[in-house]
Structures are given as C-alpha cells and as structure tokens.
C-alpha cells in the first residue's frame, strides 16, 4: 500500500510523516516523529502504555490510526513540562516511587495529566477510576495514586495566586 504524507500536530509542533493507512498513531509517533516516549505494550488496547491526549482527552495510540489523528491536537509525554522541566506529575512519580521499570509510566502520566486538566481535585477513588485502563506490573498502584494526589496538590498550590488573588494582590 502506498504511503501518504500526514501532518500531525504533536505537542504544538507540526510533523510531516509518511504513513500507510494501516499504521497506528503509536507507530507514527515513535518511528515517524522520533517521539519514543509513547510505549507500545499489548498493541490491542488493554494495557494503556500508549496513552496520549487527543484534543485534551486520554486515548490509545495503538487503536488510533495515524491518518485519523490528522487535524487533532496530540499531546505525548514529551509535551508535558515543556520538554525540559519536569511536569509536577513526573516529579511526583519520581518522588513517590510511582515508577519502577518505567515502561507503563508515560501512559500513566499522560492519562493522569488529562484527568488533572479536567478535574484539578479528584478523590482517590476518582484517580483509581481514571487510571483503571493502565496496567503496571511493578508498583502495585498505591505509589502511583499517591503520586497523582501529590501532583494535584502541587498544581493547585501553583495556580492559587493566579486563580484566587489574595487581598494584598488585589490592592496592588
């Protein structure tokens, strides 16, 4: 099957990639864009390793065709934290021991970043539900949930001055 050029918008940058219709977004990101942070585990939608954001919502890159991702805003693990700084979730996963072998970690972090974008203060139960499509064979999940809670707290604290100006700031 002939390859066609597809324009993918990944982490705000445009990538032109030659793909076959059968190529998944996961293949296009890893082999075409050189963004190997997105991992492929089961390649059948069961493990969540390949989770990316499509227009701000968590989705699986192994069950998305590269062609259908054209025109969508794709966010991968490389797009969090601006590429050079650690995103609060990445910092919290490292601090809390939420990552061991690390293969599932990008999927967990992208999925929880999508959660925190829409729900800044999720309950522990809500966090567990949001990551129920991500499998980790190392950690036992408790430290992952701890890390997401820690990151949520840090993001809320960082946003507080802008969202709710204090009395002093209002006077200035």
């Amino acid at each position, binding site marked *: 099957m002939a390859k066609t050029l597809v324009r993918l918008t990944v982490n705000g940058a445009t990538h032109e990639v030659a793909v076959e219709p*059968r190529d998944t977004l996961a293949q296009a990101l890893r082999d075409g864009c050189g963004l190997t942070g997105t991992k492929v585990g089961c*390649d059948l939608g069961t493990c*969540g390793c390949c*989770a990316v954001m499509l227009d701000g919502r*968590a989705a699986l890159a*192994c*069950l*998305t065709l590269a062609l*259908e991702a054209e025109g969508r805003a794709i966010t991968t693990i490389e797009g969090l934290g601006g590429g050079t700084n650690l995103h609060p979730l990445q910092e919290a996963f490292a601090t809390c021991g939420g990552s061991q072998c690390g293969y599932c970690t990008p999927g967990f972090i992208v999925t929880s970043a999508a959660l925190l974008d829409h729900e800044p203060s999720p309950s522990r139960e809500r966090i567990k539900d949001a990551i*129920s499509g991500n499998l980790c064979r190392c950690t036992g999940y408790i430290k992952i949930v701890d890390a997401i809670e820690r990151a949520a707290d840090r993001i809320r604290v960082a946003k507080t001055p802008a969202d709710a100006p204090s009395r002093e700031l209002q006077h200035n």
Partner: protein
Amino acid sequence: MKPFSYARPTTAADVLKLLSPTARPKAGGNDLLDLAKRGVSTPATLVDLSRISVQEGGPRFDGVTVAEGGQLEIGARVTLAQIAASADVLRIFPALADAAAAAATPQIRNVATLGGNLLQRPRCAYFRDPFFDCLKRGGTSCPARDGVHDEMAIFGNAKCCATHPSNLATALLAAPQAGLATITVEIGAKGGLVWRTVELSDGFFVRPEDDPLIEAAIAPGELLWAAFVPAAPVSAYVEINQKQSYDWASVACAVVLDVEGDKIADARIALGAVAPVPLLSEPAAAALRGKGLRDTAAWDAAAAAATQGATPLARNGHKVRQLRAVVRRAIEAAVARSK
C-alpha cells in the same frame, strides 16, 4: 495488520456508496483494529465516519437529544464517555449510563461509540484466534464446546457458545420499544437515502442457529445511525466481571421497572453475556409484576426465575449462580432509583 485503503467521505450518502462486505465503516475503531491486528478481519477498505457532516432531515448522528414526549435520541457516533456523563441519559434512562460507564477503560470510552459498542464482535477467544476452527468465521466446528468455555453462554449455546459482548445492547433491550435507525442508499441513478427503524427486541440480534456469521441484522451497505429510547427512569444495569477494569461482563442484567405507588406494575429484565444474543427474561419479569417495590422475596424469586432453562456447559455452571446474583443486584439498584 494486512494493508487496507482508507476513505474519508464527508457525507452519509458518500459513506453508504462505499460500504460493502469488504469496505467497513470505522467510528472509534477499537474492535475493528483488534480484529484486523489478530487477522480475524481483513477489510480491503476502511471508511472513516468521523468527517461526516450533519445530515439534514433525519435523526442526528451526534449528540444526545430529548425528543417531544421525553424520548431519548442518541446518535450512533456518541461516545461511551458522553453517554455515561450525560445528564439527560442519567435522568431518562440511567441503565444506559450504567452500561456505558462499565465498558472497557476510560481511554477507550473516550473514543468508542454507541454504534460500535452495539456492533462489536464476540470476545470468544477461539473466534479471535484464526488458528482455531470457528463457526463464526465460516468453519465447521466449535472448539469452545470441548475447550475453555468458562465465560461462555449458558443459554442458547447448542451451536455456538460465544456470548454477545455489548453492555449497551443489554441495557437498550430492557427499555420497552427501544429502537435503532439505520440508513442505506437506494440502488439506482437517484441514490437517495433510505431510512429504516427496527425495534431491538424484534429480530435485530441474530442467533447463531439463524446465521452464525453475524450478530446483528444490518446489511453490509447499511449504517447504524441512531438509537431511540423511551423514558425508563427507574432502571439500572449491573454486571459482574472477573477483573475490576477492562473486562467484558461475565454476567450482566438490566432492569426497567414501571412503578405505581409502592407496587411494581410492570418490569422488563434483560440478561447480558449469558447467550449469543441479549435475552429478555419473561419469567423474571413475571415474578416482579404486581409485587411490592421493596418485596425482597419477590426480588429473590425473580433472580431465581431468570436462571430457568439454563443449559450450562461442563465448565461454566458458576455463571448460573452469578446470573442469579446479578439479577438480584440490578433489581435492587433499579428500586433505589424510584422516588
């Protein structure tokens, strides 16, 4: 995956002109790509449904709308995440929101659609592995009968014992007069659109005795477009799984109650994951009719009646007991939604 070509038409008419036994419609594509990766399905063309613009003069392909008379109209392209979170669905037919929330994983629910959920193929491991013979793939035998069939059918399993995989089908079947709208394109020069509506309880689901190759009576050139659901606010869907996430139901039950005062005037009880098609259990419904809303002896009687006529295989007798439990839980969950 075997190579395929990819078409991205922008109108329903153009989609319908392309569809054929080898050119298949793709919405979320979760099941389609799973089947293609396993080599079970080898479409020559995938027809992307994501670019179809709004169709004039028919039901909507997108969104949840409340029609006059309070009936829900849900486009086939609506995602499971949207159904699970829809205030209208939760108010008018909460069993459907339960069923959507219980499906797959959050990532898949963000992409998977109502239409795709209803038309997904069975999860039988023998069907999904081309190494094995399978009646559903045109073969002559069913290795599941003498194989690993712990999760397979306990009703209607004489020929094929794969269970129907759709949560939403079970929930919709419990709603009285729930229907689906489909469209085809007229053969001939004019090529106008032809609408068809079908009641879910009236032959939409195909038994393996009638045709083992398909599970739904929808033609290769026909597109599922929308579902209509009458109001059934006292309703619930409950399933029991082996795993807490990303697992198709071991057994499932959707209950719709018509409540008058503190009595159950009428009931509909649909059973899922226990037969090749979702089943309505009349014995279970009969055990509730005329009984008190909180008559737990009647709930137990209905749960026991739902297992009448079960024909479990050598290794899945446990599903009979699970079915009894899930029917009891679903009745209790529906009653909790009455005022």
